[in-house]
């Protein structure tokens, strides 16, 4: 606003009409109105409506939405299943992100060279990223099948008993993490390779003259120089993992015994299978709060340690 005012003072030394001045003030808002409209319609309104619904009891079809205050929230927070869902989501997110980033970084360091073999490897590792999640789920359901799956066949070959990958509450979540890591590595590796290539070579030469041992070179130069990439991939990874849905829907349906039920699937179940929209919305609000807090924490705390050139 102040900026617009200054412009007015400079361009219009009091001679022109008042109406022009007000147009100059309005102009920027008029310019961004279409974008604001789209944003409001598809982002602000749904979020507002979700918050509104979270204080009501509604079944999707009834014309009446009963106001129930914070009942949905108090019920949610006292629900053992929901607490499991929260813990599942955190476990899933933590291991998925940590493993994906760790493995991708190592792969990126290994593959960050020129040569046909390395290009081929980069392309191969990237390929899961372009397969749709539904196909990935079907593929892994077959691989992880308890009776005739590829994984168990391989395990049996080397004399290990079959594992109930998707049908045991002990393994199901880990199996889903495995699939997510497999799918995520390609993209993460590619981004890491791009990050590695943007590190000036002369830094490593300077480090070499400074007698830097390899592990210290990695910790003191590679990691700090990659920090924007690490930061970006972590945030994207956390947000994506918290919103995992397709693999759970197709592979486990949240089971067995709620062991793979996570936020979005839980919301989906309550909203579109049990038609408890108010309750599902309340869970959605909690997910929104958790993601906002996580993002905020990242930006406040982590970004201080991120080096941008």
């Amino acid at each position, binding site marked *: 606003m102040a900026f617009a005012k200054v412009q007015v003072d400079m361009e219009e030394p009091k001679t022109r009409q008042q109406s022009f001045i007000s147009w100059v003030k309005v102009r920027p808002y008029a310019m961004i109105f279409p974008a604001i409209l789209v944003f409001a319609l598809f982002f602000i309104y749904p979020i507002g409506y979700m918050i509104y619904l979270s204080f009501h009891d509604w079944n999707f079809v009834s014309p009446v939405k009963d106001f129930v205050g914070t009942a949905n929230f108090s019920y949610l927070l006292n629900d053992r299943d929901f607490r499991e869902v929260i813990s599942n989501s955190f476990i899933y997110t933590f291991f998925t992100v940590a493993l994906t980033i760790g493995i991708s970084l190592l792969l990126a360091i290994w593959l960050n060279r020129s040569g046909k073999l390395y290009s081929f490897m980069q392309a191969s590792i990237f390929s899961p990223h372009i397969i749709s999640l539904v196909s990935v789920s079907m593929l892994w359901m077959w691989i992880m099948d308890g009776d005739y799956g590829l994984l168990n066949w391989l395990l049996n070959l080397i004399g290990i008993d079959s594992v109930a990958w998707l049908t045991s509450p002990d393994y199901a979540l880990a199996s889903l993490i495995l699939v997510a890591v497999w799918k995520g590595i390609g993209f993460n590796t590619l981004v890491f390779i791009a990050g590695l290539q943007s590190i000036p070579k002369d830094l490593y*030469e300077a480090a070499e*003259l*400074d*007698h830097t*041992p390899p592990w*210290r070179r990695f910790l003191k130069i590679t990691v700090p120089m990659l920090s924007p990439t690490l930061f970006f991939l972590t945030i994207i990874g956390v947000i994506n993992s918290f919103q995992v849905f397709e693999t759970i829907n197709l592979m486990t349906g949240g089971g067995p015994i709620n062991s793979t039920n996570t936020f979005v699937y839980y919301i989906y179940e309550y909203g579109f299978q049990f038609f408890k929209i108010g309750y599902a919305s309340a869970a959605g609000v909690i997910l929104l709060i958790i993601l906002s807090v996580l993002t905020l924490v990242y930006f406040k705390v982590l970004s201080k340690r991120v080096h941008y050139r």
Partner: protein
Amino acid sequence: MAEIRLENISKTFNEDCVVKNISLTIKDGSFTVLVGPSGCGKSTILRMLAGFEQQTEGNIWIDGKLVNDLAPSKRDIAMVFQNYALYPTMTVRGNIEFGLANRKVPKIERQQLVDEIAGIVGLTDHLNKKPDKLSGGQRQRVALARAMVKKPKVFILDEPLSNLDAKLRTQMRTELIELHERLGTTFVYVTHDQVEAMSMGDEIIILNKGEVQQKAAPIEVYQNPGNVFAAEFIGQPPMNVFGRDAFESVLEEVPEGVSSIGFRPEHAELALETRNVPHMAELESEIVTLETLGAETVYKVKNRIGMMNIRSFSTPIPSRGTCYVSIPLEKLHPFAADGSAVPDTDLSANKEAVLHGVR
């Protein structure tokens, strides 16, 4: 301190020979400047010296030790990179002491060394800042301090001033000369800037297309250029060099074996009227352009010989019409067909046979 010896060094990149059989000795404690246009191989030589590139052929000796297969860190050298290569995530102190910390120098000793060096290069107030908060000159100093703190036998500087503005560059030039005098260590300095080479080096090595053109003290390079390339590379504006034919119309006798002749722009004199001074070739010329630089004026003039630069320290001539250029015969540099200087040819033997350029 160390003497550096290159013995028949060649470097080939994918069949592209960038350094061709070079043998050089860089004197202990000298400030040696490798100078040449881009692509002349000067940086490659430097990188082979540092150990970042392996020479295709030949031996490198530093302080009497054969270092062919020695890792860069074992060669006891320090390098200042063109883009400084400071660790951006570390403070100035962190940058300077990183090499010491890697060698497990005790913390107290490290602190003393850093403080001492920071005092020398004037960084004491900036030790806790990150490089991105520093100006170009300050970053340059950090890079120098980081090199100095290791107390190396040889300093290698790869175009360290090229990223600084003109004023700062002049200032840093002086500081580097002082630093070299203070440390007494061998400095090997790479630049494409002939002014830097002339002003800083004890010895200049002029390179072109992977070969040494001349290796001598700056004044020697200026006064007795070894070949046409050296003559045209050093000096601003460069030496005027013309073919034998051009001079045959001016000199009565051009000795056998001389295929081109040059003279420095500042050795010719420019006057508005014909003067007919003995031992000078006088040419009627036309001023094409003039650059007034304050203390001096650079004229571009056209005459029978061709287009030439004349550098004059007298008051600029305002008009652009006809003038007379006199070239002292003893300042003429004859070159042979292969471009090398023909040393014992005295063209001033022509003194009685000067044709006045006036036509």
